[in-house]
């Protein structure tokens, strides 16, 4: 049995790349191979020009991994971030990182006293304190409230703007759409779609749904030429209250893709 069999990806420097897929599809396996945590039994993998299975400490100094784990329960936020900063040759300032992840004011609190969301921020702080060139984020916002998620997205965008290459796995399609330059959908260990979120799975070319509130209730027309349809409808009815023209959502495309590949 192979958890992953046919994942062929190239991710460019500075890119934010999202891996989507149902549980058990092989996302974590793929990421762990790239992080150097898991040995693969075939194929090639290269991160920053090195094979993760063979790479040493200098390579690790250039990557950052955000793991969903509890920290040392008895140590404080400042102690943990400061300690991890000491592992890297050119770390970010610990105070700056704590501010970046929004834990300012909690420096002196022990990890076990933090809320779930705050612990996740500490996880992120430990992953970025080494100023990584490649950052792995495995389901980073699971358990975040919507506001915390927005703040986290801002942080990811800032890191990406600084040139950090980011590989993200997520269950949240809106997260992939908000952050990723490109998205790959993995199902049953294989990449079933790859592209920009806006065009994934032929999304942009798909038929659009045109809906409006007619006197007798809401009406919908599906067409491959939405502009033409809207002009015709406007000519016929005059006003079109509540008019929307939508492409299939990323979620629609995703569900269709993984449905086909189950």
């Amino acid at each position, binding site marked *: 049995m192979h958890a992953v069999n046919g*994942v062929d990806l190239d991710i460019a420097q500075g890119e934010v790349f999202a891996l989507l897929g149902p549980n058990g599809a092989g996302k974590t396996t793929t990421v762990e191979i790239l992080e150097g945590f898991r040995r693969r039994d075939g*194929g090639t993998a290269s991160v920053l*020009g090195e094979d993760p299975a063979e790479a040493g400490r200098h390579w690790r100094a250039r990557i950052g991994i955000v793991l969903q784990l509890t920290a040392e329960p008895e140590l404080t936020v400042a102690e943990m971030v400061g*300690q991890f900063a*000491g592992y*890297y040759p050119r770390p970010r300032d610990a105070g700056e990182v704590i501010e970046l992840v929004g834990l300012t004011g909690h420096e002196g609190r022990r990890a076990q006293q933090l809320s779930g969301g705050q612990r996740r921020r500490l996880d992120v702080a430990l992953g970025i304190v080494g100023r990584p060139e490649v950052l792995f984020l495995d389901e980073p916002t699971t358990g975040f409230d919507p506001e915390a998620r927005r703040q986290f997205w801002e942080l990811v965008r800032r890191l990406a703007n600084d040139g950090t290459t980011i590989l993200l796995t997520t269950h949240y399609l809106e997260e992939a759409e908000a952050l990723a330059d490109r998205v790959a959908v993995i199902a049953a260990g294989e990449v079933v779609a790859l592209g920009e979120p806006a065009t994934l799975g032929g999304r942009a070319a798909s038929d659009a749904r045109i809906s409006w509130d007619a006197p007798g209730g809401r009406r919908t027309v599906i067409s491959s030429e939405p502009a033409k349809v809207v002009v015709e409808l406007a000519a016929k009815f005059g006003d079109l209250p509540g008019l929307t023209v939508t492409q299939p959502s990323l979620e629609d495309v995703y569900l269709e893709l993984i449905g086909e590949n189950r």
Partner: protein
Amino acid sequence: MTATSLSDEFRPTAGEQRLPGAWRTGLARGRLEVAAFFRERQTVVFVFALPAVLLVLLGSIFGHQRVTDGITVGQLFTAGMIAGGIGSTSFQNLGLTIAAERERGMLKRLRGTPMSPAAYFIGKIVLVFVCTIAEVLVLLAVGMAFYRLHLPDSAAQWWTLAWVFTLGTVACSLIGIAISSLSKSATNSFPVIGLPFIVLQFISGVYVPFYNVPRWLQEVASLFPLKWMSQGLRSAFLPARAAVLEPAHSWQHGQTALVLLVWIAAGLVLCLTTFRWQTSRDR
């Protein structure tokens, strides 16, 4: 076929950057290890305070019985309990904390950083030596206050204390690190680590004077370091005439050093071959 690459074309000179040295990082880790140890009530009570509490209890009940001219059970207990205390802050402490760190994924997380693996073990060495010296001082204070234990009164006895302490601590630490891998989760570490340690303390002259232990159990105990550590410490703290209480009627220093060195060698080999940064589930 799996072909995956990230940012191949981009190779700045970061590879040339000097990584922080193992000693500096390890000593910094050691400072935080000690802080974390003394902040966690569970380990302070179970690993650090328990030997002193037991010494007070056992000593209060049996301690004033005289065994041979001028020597009391309390003095035997104190010397034995110092050996038990060394085992607790080295073997038991490392076995429990490393199993917990592996379970929490802390070791995996460290493995994902450029930290030198040596720095991790340097930090543990600092933790063990600080805790163990503090433990010995506490037990010495209890023994001197209540059971008329005397500090070694010759250079030879101080030297015995020094080498038995050092070899015993190193041997117990290495076995503790090795045995942490046998514990599949922090919650099942008691049968793997705590229970054998309690049994050994009963049969090695820590909780019960060694001459009261049945012959066959004495022989079992002789296979493990704790018996030799407690015997070596008795030789450091008790007058020479107390040697008649030992099964061999002598302190057997040469044999003690040999057994401890063999365990150090075996422990080192076990650590190097079995240490895992991840749980078996992760792989």
